[in-house]
């Protein structure tokens, strides 16, 4: 139940009908959450920015079939963020002409990668979870994104992913197990490499 002033279904109707201003408002509204999700999957914030751009380009390209869940686009956008991140190279090919027009990112080196990892997940375990999350399949990432990170209801996640509620539950449980296993592996690996053999 929302108390927001902006009526997103109506805003989306206008945007996909060709109102560029309405589309820009949707970008303003959801940019940060899409960017935040992309940061979980990309090592560089500049790649995450490119992913964000491509997600909204996808939103426009696929405007005839995009569906709102609980009157918001955010579920579709986050799932698409996962998909675009997974297919980053292919997506870049599709949108190369457009992405090339975005001002180039500031030069970044290994130090920046370290900084980004540090900034996203300052704690070691958090970093491990982030790393493990990036290793999950797109299906697992979608489930974790919606049900855990974004706290979608069972029905909302089911509607966003167009799968039955029971499947959401089972996929969620398995995705959590895989995330937990990957996190444990990563922590153990980190422990071995950083301080193991003396």
């Amino acid at each position, binding site marked *: *139940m929302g*108390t927001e*002033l*902006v*009526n997103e*279904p*109506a*805003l*989306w*109707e*206008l945007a996909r*009908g*060709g*109102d*560029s*201003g*309405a*589309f*820009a*408002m949707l*970008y303003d509204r959801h940019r940060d959450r899409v*960017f*935040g999700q992309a940061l979980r999957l990309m090592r560089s*914030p500049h790649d995450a*920015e490119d992913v*964000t*751009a491509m997600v*909204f*380009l996808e939103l*426009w*390209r696929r405007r*005839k*079939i995009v*569906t709102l869940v609980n*009157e918001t686009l955010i579920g579709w956008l986050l*799932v*698409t963020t996962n998909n*675009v991140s997974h*297919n980053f190279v292919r997506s870049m090919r599709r949108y190369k002409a*457009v992405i090339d027009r*975005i*001002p180039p990112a*500031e030069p970044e080196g290994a130090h920046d990668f370290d900084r980004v990892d540090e*900034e996203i997940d*300052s704690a070691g375990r958090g970093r491990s979870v982030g790393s493990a999350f990036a290793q999950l399949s*797109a299906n697992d990432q979608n489930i974790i994104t919606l*049900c855990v990170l974004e*706290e979608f*209801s*069972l*029905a*909302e*996640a089911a509607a966003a992913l*167009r799968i*039955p509620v*029971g*499947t959401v*539950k*089972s996929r*969620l449980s398995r995705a959590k197990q895989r995330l937990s296993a990957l996190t444990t592996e990563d922590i153990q690996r980190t422990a071995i490499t950083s301080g193991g053999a003396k």
Partner: protein
Amino acid sequence: MTETPKFDPQRSAAIRHLLIENVEAEPKRRTSHLRALLAGLIITGVVASGSTALALNRDSLFGAPAPSTGVEVSTPPTPTASVTTPPAQETESPARISVATAPIVPQDIATQPTGPTWSLQPPGLGEPGKLVGSIDISEDYALISVAPEHGADLTSESLPASTSSLSVTLVNTRTGDQVWSREWHWDLEAGVSSADARALVLGTSGRVLVVTTGSENGPREVLDLSTGTAVAAFQPAEPGETLKKVSVVPGDSGDVYATLAQRDDQGDVLPYSLVKRFDPANTTDAQWVTRIDAAGVNVGDSGNDIGYAKVTYYAGDPQQSGNGVLDLATGAFVARPEPFEYYPFTGYTIRSNPDEAGGSSTLTGLDDDGNTLWTRTETGLAQVDEVLTSAAIPGSPRWSTVGTGQFVVVSANGVALVDGLTGSTIWQAALADWKLEYPSVPLRFEAQGDVLTVTNFGGSPSSLVDLTTGAWMGFSPWDISYETSGAEYAYRSIDGQVSAIDKISGEVIWTTDLAADSLFFAGGRLVATEGNTLRSVG
């Protein structure tokens, strides 16, 4: 504490500009004078055609109407021709099959099955980018659809599809007999990567609507439920109209209400939409047509047998958006200035109105005629969830289950179990006792005997609660991970084996070798899919 990376403002502005350019580069849209129109438009309410007087007698449903400055327009539809399509492939004598009126209880398999007793291959099942769906018709009968999955081209390594397909098959899930099956293939228009094509059961009318949105080339037909034969073509849109959404009017009318966006001769979006109620087999004779003066309009599904739907609309400025209620009997529309939500639960509907500051929420129980049953005030933003059973609602997608007549309110004051018809509190519990915080994570409540299972989707274990007292019994002894849920057992498929598990104790009742991509109840019978095959489990 480290700082979260921020979006580079210069790159963000450039992306924003590119997106605007990208939208405006699309031919056939000239939005400048649309925006000029919108700039002068004040949307605070909308008047509809039809019997407004009748609607306004239902104040308990609509509440006090907002001041209206909209203009009434009622447009009679132009005639359209019916189209007959080839008959369905029938493999069983066409006995009349109708949608059940009573909930369909899933038939548990209590002992280890010896193996599938039947299997069949619905067209398209197992193909990439396809999603299997099931609608329970009655005990032993289900409508199985294999439909395009949104977003399939993004996760596939192949290029975006240029064609799409849909199949709908009526199956006797006890015997495995295919009563009829229909299949459609079509070319997608340039720029369209997949379409939303689906089957909708038209209440208890004995008909099915196959409808596509997002692609004008996809199937739009009315089918006879018993035979699958086409009764008529579904032609909802007149020239200049684009079908946005179709929803079923509950009951036996077989009617639908459709939202149609409007464009002028140049293809520009006009700042209003029409909502029409008609028999999909005869769209020329609309029961009512309601114009809503806003470019963006979304009409919700009504749910239950309730005779109204929530409408949200937007006029181009955030200050000019709003909510309203559409009376499905008359087409009358009443704007409501305050935020609200409807929760269509079994046997009653709840309207929730949070106050502007979020300090409290007013819950109003409504019967199917929109009359007020009760009113409650909750502290803070109340989260309302129906207590569910495992029984399916006939004519609805497979995950729609029947409620017990009770619902749970999670508010700043704690957790309360409430009777849906009287609004009276049956018991109350402290959030801490249930290991919950406020605002709560998403929860699902399912009753089984005297136990309430509280499934927690925020990462914490699920809990068991005494349904008669609200006393927390402890965390669930298992992880409540399953594909589908029966009356007493849940079923899951892992590594080529299907297991039945006691939903309360977590005890594994049986395990059998059976590979399954998905498990679900259809017509009350447990079925599985693997590749291109649908088969029984036992």
